[in-house]
């Protein structure tokens, strides 16, 4: 859903599409000349597919570059700058806030072919080009007794570059931290086409790039920290009649001193959508389900921690099932990872929130959001990394049946619940275009000013992923309350 104000500017009447490889605009022609035809997509049939991410469609880009090296990225950035064309970085386009969808005719730099990956077991590090698929870092590190913990549900698809762009998290981040915690150094190409290598000392400029959604520079290579996996992991599933009870169990378990490695929840609509896909016997009747892993190198402690969580769940009114085998826990975690796309079975489109609230207020927050959903009459579901207080309330809709305005209003009211309880708008999916209209309410004007200063310093011409994250500088705020 694109708020009116952000709707892509209609492009000039499309010239008759050609697929014979002859570029149909000067930028594409220039890029083809400097990079060769294999790395440049210029026919409309090819560019069409680079206008969306996992939530939103934008404008058809003017050209798409598929770089194979940092030097290719530099050439692409220079050409776009010379032509005054905006630049949008793109990984697997699994983003959920509109980040990789161009808002107007742009150059899309798609990193999917930059997939060089080296593991240095002695240093417990990996060096990855941006297009490396997240899961493959762990796959390549595991034979050396190491893993890469950040695990967004999309980790089979998403890229390291996109993970840095969004500072992605996942179930593991409750205990082990998010993407940014594993970045030791990164290389990026700035708006002028210069290459920089950043570490995390002095000014943490790398930290600034992480989570900047392609608005400050294009990340080309990353040095990632690897860790040995815990020796033991135990999985538990608890189901509750009502969603607030699940949240109570979470607060109680953590207060009792448990530090599960993963602590996730999904409500009834989620478990049912997933059951339709996987058919693995999730409790269809439950109002909410918690999925919990405890792990460590000492089996006794791991079991003790599981017992703590179990007790908290029982006390909150839940029924508990322990996974009996690795296969059973793998199936349960696949279930959790499938929630988000499985919601497509309910409605084809959704407005996806990514709020984070203090754990102490979780029960009120999930109940308030449930009530807002019920009152609106729109299909609303909740799931997320509840251990971190990171919730994903989703408003599902079909534009032919439900009014986009009603959807937007509901999303806005949910955002306000988070803010009222001392929470923030985005835990991991970024602001993109989806949550940009709420930024003025979530961030005070002085801080927004500081963010703008950073943006101007690194992107003086405003060519890097324009229209994302920051609201218009001299905007009157009225648009934030449609």
């Amino acid at each position, binding site marked *: 859903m694109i708020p009116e104000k952000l709707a892509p500017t209609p492009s000039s009447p499309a010239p008759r599409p050609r697929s014979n490889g002859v570029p149909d605009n000067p930028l594409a022609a220039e890029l083809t000349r400097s990079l060769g035809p294999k790395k440049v997509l210029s026919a409309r049939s090819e560019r069409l597919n680079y206008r969306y991410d996992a939530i939103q469609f934008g404008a058809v880009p003017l050209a798409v570059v598929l770089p194979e090296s940092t030097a290719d990225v530099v050439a692409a950035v220079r050409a776009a700058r010379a032509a005054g064309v905006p630049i949008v970085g793109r990984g697997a386009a699994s983003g959920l806030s509109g980040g990789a969808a161009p808002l107007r005719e742009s150059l899309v730099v798609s990193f999917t072919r930059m997939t060089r990956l080296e593991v240095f077991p002695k240093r417990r590090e990996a060096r990855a080009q941006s297009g490396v698929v997240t899961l493959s870092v762990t796959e390549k590190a595991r034979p050396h007794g190491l893993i890469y913990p950040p695990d967004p549900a*999309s980790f089979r698809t998403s890229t390291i570059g996109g993970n840095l762009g969004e500072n992605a998290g996942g179930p593991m981040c409750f205990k082990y931290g998010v993407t940014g915690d594993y970045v030791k150094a990164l290389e990026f190409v700035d708006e002028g086409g210069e290459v920089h290598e950043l570490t995390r000392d002095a000014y943490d400029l790398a930290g600034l790039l992480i989570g900047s959604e392609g608005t400050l520079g294009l990340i080309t290579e990353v040095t990632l920290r690897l860790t040995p996996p815990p020796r033991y992991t135990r999985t538990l599933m608890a189901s509750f009649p009502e969603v607030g009870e699940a949240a109570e169990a979470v607060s109680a378990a953590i207060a009792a001193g448990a530090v599960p490695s993963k602590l996730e929840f999904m409500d009834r609509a989620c478990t049912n959508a997933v059951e339709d896909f996987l058919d693995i016997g999730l409790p269809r009747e439950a109002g909410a389900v918690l999925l919990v892993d405890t792990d460590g190198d000492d089996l006794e402690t791991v079991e003790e921690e599981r017992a703590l969580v179990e007790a908290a769940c029982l006390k909150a009114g839940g029924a508990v099932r322990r996974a009996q085998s690795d296969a059973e826990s793998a199936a349960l975690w696949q279930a959790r990872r499938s929630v988000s796309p499985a919601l497509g079975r309910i409605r084809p489109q959704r407005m996806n929130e990514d709020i984070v609230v203090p754990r102490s207020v979780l029960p009120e927050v999930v109940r308030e959001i449930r009530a807002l959903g019920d009152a609106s009459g729109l299909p609303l579901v909740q799931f997320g990394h509840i251990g971190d207080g990171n919730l994903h309330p989703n408003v599902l809709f079909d534009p032919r049946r439900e009014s986009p305005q009603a959807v937007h209003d509901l999303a806005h009211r949910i955002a306000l619940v988070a803010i009222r309880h001392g929470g923030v708008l985005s835990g991991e999916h970024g602001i993109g275009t989806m949550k940009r209209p709420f930024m003025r309410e979530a961030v005070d004007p002085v801080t927004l000013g500081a963010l703008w200063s950073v943006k101007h310093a690194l992107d003086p011409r405003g060519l890097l992923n324009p229209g994302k994250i920051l609201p218009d500088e001299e905007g009157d705020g009225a648009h934030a309350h449609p």
Partner: protein
Amino acid sequence: MAHAVDACVHCGFCLPACPTYALLGDEMDSPRGRIVLMKEVLEGALPLEDAAPHLDRCLGCQACVTACPSGVPYGELITSFRGWSEPRRQRSPLDRAKRSAILKILPAPKVFSVAARIGQYAKPLAPLLPAALRAPMDLLPERVPAMQPNAGFTPAKSKRRGRVAFLAGCAQQALTPNFNAATLRVLSRNGVEVVIPEGQGCCGAAALHTGARDEALRLVRQNLDAFHPDEYDAILSNAAGCGAGLKEYPVVLHGLPDEERARAFAAKVQDISEYLGGLLREGDLERPMPTSRPLTVAYHDACHLAHAQGVRAAPRELLRAIPGVTVAEVPEGDLCCGSAGTYNLEQPELANQLGIRKARNILSTTPDLIASGNIGCHTQIQSHVRRAGDRVPVMHTVEVLDLAYRGEL
């Protein structure tokens, strides 16, 4: 079709499953991208000929369907799109001739046998031929076996447990007659009598998936007339592609007069491994003899078995039921081998790359035997394993079982 297109939430979960995306790394050659292209073409926003190259590269392997949590019926989408677009395509006369030849030869076992024999003698000339003609020849075995006539009825050898109808298949009869022979032996040994109904023909899948819809409808109706589902416990196929085709009949006839008949028919269709797996689970399968030495069997999931029919466990269980056999899982096991019906005739380049990759992955398990449940995969894998310089035998799952029964493993 519009509904199916809308069901895609463009999440990208299907990307890692797609063989062409794995090879080409661009969005147009991914399931998500193809869905968008189809939509654009159907809405008139993109000329068909611009989208066609990317849609033609789709193997129809349905790995994306297995991967898609939103339940997008991609297989039905691409099939109906091909049916819609084929009459609108501008193809060169040579191209047309090639396609219609494929569709005539493949489904007719006798013609195929003759063609294969000619091909076999022409093999030494292959390097001189254009790629389009070279590809099919590469796949021919060194020796094309003689056709074996099929008995219309095979009685049960032990206590009678069931009665099934069997689809004898097309090209497979000519290339690997032992698939059917082994199937009949294994069934009959397990007390199942087998009828090969007269008048049956090609399942129609090849025609359907290349967009020759009228021809497909004709073949489907022919089979509906030949098989009478209520007379049998099951209708069996031992070729994953054909089995998937038979199970698709209700979709093919959706909204047409024979839809109900198709439904009754499809409800009875099973792959041979599904059926035998059922006997195994009931404790009704005769125990195979132990192997003479420990054997590692690499099991290859045929797309049309694993993705289109969702049959993964049964063949593995059958192999494991042979004492002495260890089943090895193939790395990147979900990635198509590149055979995919007529794909290696139409996209020899990509099919070849996938075949090489598949052979490398399979051989990395250092197998003593390779098993799979589809004639297309069989020829593709055999030819690429041989080209990689390895002589390890490639067999149908049911052939392995048959050998085990005879104490020859």
